[in-house]
């Protein structure tokens, strides 16, 4: 009904291979973009910006980066948090050493540093696979967090060992630090996330993406058909770490405002990994769905009791929240082990053939 494809003829292969083979998909995406770019910014409160919109976007971006590596190229990584940290610390050093630098450039540049670190820690992936590689990335995780703690140059010898985001402006408008308005930061995050998502969609659909998928599905076969595994794996590490690094810089500069080293510890890596897994490995949409479930839902659940006028102990809400979100994760993984993106894919398929199921 909603997804009727009748009348949408494709006359060329090109049209058949398009990003939106069905018009409704393009329409839906347009609707989401209108919501994200116009409706939310004009209606959202400070609370919504700070606890829902901005963090969901930033976590989605981190998961997107991880998804390139794990979902598309098949290299399991447990070091996402640390790579986000590299991006954040690189951005901090860039803006404090060169205060004249445009903050957006600094954020985009900071990804380069984490890409470099990512490639360095990705080199073992040429020899080791699967769980063994996961352990190697775990080593990166521990090492980098240790470095953030011990190398005081990174946090400008601040006595508390934390980095604090300065007030930065572009054309007289504050974009980071306490003086920045949430809506400005939201737009900036949204622009970068939109841009990187667009780039990623194109990358994964193109030659490079196919190389990654071949590497993931069977590396020996991939090598036999002439794919250079080293190139494939290292580009995956580089691009993935770049995106993760940018998300780390956004995480601290556009949202948190301050960070201590242990913020980038394993719990963050796992959180991003869960978003990618629950959203769906090897999908772009999944990252957003996963972030909404893992980052957004607990916040919404937390506001529910007071919205309904029920007086509940705050600690109890927190316990209930953990239980509800936990059981939802299990529920979703049981009904669809391939994640929320796959769930949506099935729903969409059913809608297309409705009302005549096979």
């Amino acid at each position, binding site marked *: 009904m909603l997804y009727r494809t009748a009348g949408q003829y494709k006359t060329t292969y090109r049209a058949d291979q398009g990003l939106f083979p069905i018009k409704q998909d393009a329409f839906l995406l347009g609707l989401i973009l209108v919501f994200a770019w116009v409706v939310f910014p004009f209606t959202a409160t400070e609370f919504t910006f*700070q606890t829902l919109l901005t963090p969901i976007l930033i976590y989605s971006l981190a998961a997107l980066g991880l998804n390139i590596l794990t979902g598309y190229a098949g290299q399991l990584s447990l070091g996402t948090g640390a790579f986000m940290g590299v991006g954040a610390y690189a951005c901090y050093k860039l803006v404090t050493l060169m205060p004249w630098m445009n903050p957006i450039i600094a954020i985009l540049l900071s990804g380069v540093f984490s890409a470099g670190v990512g490639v360095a820690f990705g080199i073992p992936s040429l020899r080791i696979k699967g769980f063994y590689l996961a352990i190697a990335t775990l080593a990166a995780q521990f090492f980098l967090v240790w470095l953030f703690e011990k190398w005081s140059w990174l946090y400008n010898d601040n*006595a*508390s060992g*934390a980095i*604090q985001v300065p*007030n930065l402006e572009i054309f007289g408008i504050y974009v980071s630090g*306490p003086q920045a308005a949430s809506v400005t930061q939201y737009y900036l995050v949204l622009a970068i996330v939109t841009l990187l998502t667009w780039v990623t969609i194109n990358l994964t659909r193109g030659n490079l993406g196919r190389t990654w998928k071949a590497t993931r599905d069977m590396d020996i076969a991939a090598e036999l058909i002439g794919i250079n595994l080293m190139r494939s794996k290292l580009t995956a590490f580089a691009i993935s770490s770049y995106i993760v690094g940018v998300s780390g810089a956004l995480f601290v500069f556009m949202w948190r405002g301050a960070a201590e080293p242990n*913020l980038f510890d394993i719990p963050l890596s796992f959180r991003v990994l869960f978003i990618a897994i629950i959203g769906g490995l090897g999908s772009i949409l999944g990252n957003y769905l996963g972030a909404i479930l893992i980052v957004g839902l607990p916040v919404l659940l*937390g506001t529910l009791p007071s919205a309904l006028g029920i007086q509940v102990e705050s600690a109890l809400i927190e316990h209930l929240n953990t239980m509800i979100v936990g059981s939802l994760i299990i529920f979703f993984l049981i009904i669809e082990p391939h994640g*929320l993106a796959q769930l949506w894919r099935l729903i969409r398929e059913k809608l297309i053939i409705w009302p005549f199921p096979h």
Partner: protein
Amino acid sequence: MKTWQELAMATAVGLVLGGAALAEGIYTPNLAYRTGPFAATGTPIMDGQKDYMALLNARDGGIGGVAINFEECETGYSTEKGVECYERTKADAVVTQPWSTGITLQVLPKTNVDKIPILAPGYGFSPMSDGAVFQWAFNPPASYWDGASMILNEISGGDPASLKGKKIVLLHLDHPFGKEPIPLLETMAKEYGFDLVLVPVGLKEMQNQSAQWLQIRRERPDFVIMWGWGAMNAAAINEAVKTKYPMDQFVGVWWAGHDADLKQVGEAGKGYRSISWSMPQPDAPIMADLKQYVYDKGNSTAEDPDSVFYQRGLVISMMLAEGIRTAQQHFDVGEITPEQLRWGLENLDISDERLAELGMTGMVPPFKTSCDNHTGHSGGWMLEWDGTRFVQSSDLLQADASFIRPLEVKAAEEYAAENQPWPINEDCK
């Protein structure tokens, strides 16, 4: 994509919520942590804070006739949740009680914009004492630097110069909180010629400190000063007992003086000391009132009302309540605004007479805050574990202001410089 639409709906719900927190009385949210890794130490303090406000509401109908809407927002000591709570409560709140150094660090730069005072009693950033720079932040009655200086005064028998050539280990959590005393201790080590050895405990190693204690045994320090919190304290005290480190040379900050941590070692912990700006007074008149108005009505979840941490919670809420009262009297209004509370906290006068009126004599040393002194520098007492409970083991100790004040001013200046534009209250200087 259904989920996106749900998000849109949910956002609409969120919009309504954002501004609809209960608006009865004076709203004083507390970013509590009764869950998570620090719950054991957090819960008694939160109970104390809550019960004090419950007492005021039940006995006096609030403060100045206006009810206090004291609400907890659970953070589990997580910075992320803390920021969520801050955003959720800031529309109506007259005060922010951040309760974690991480959350304080995040909220502190926003204070000039949001104009809500931060009340961080006995924690947070020591230079917050410089009220000209940190106009919106308060850490009465004593800062971490005060604590470190008081500890040195006590262990040196009142003359820090006698520490010359001695070796002091600072066993600290490797986290902004644990690093707080380092600048002051380093300055003092230089001045008095003692040897300062830093032994950090990572957040992941809190419960297993065998490596740190091995190092301490090797170093053979004359004193161990502990800047610990949560699970770290219990583990450190256990290790100290196990390695037979002399307990009378082991001194903790006020957050390392939790009854439950020492009860588990009992007699073996005898002699362990903790500096404190609060002291439990089981016979204080306020405890009788609490029993009559709160406990007997079944409105309290407190387990041990005589413990150090619970009674410290009472003192913390007392400081907030006195801030509100001072503001109400000065501005002659009932429902005060955050700006008015800021004035109130800046002009606190907790005198002995006032403490007697409150029925809290001896629970906290008298102190006064002012425009350029947001801490009050009340001084504190050394509490000593006698095998079953903490007892007072020193007279009122004072911090060495001649060291601390220049450091505070310098650190505050640096902070302001890093966070340009940062308004400075010139009237204060």
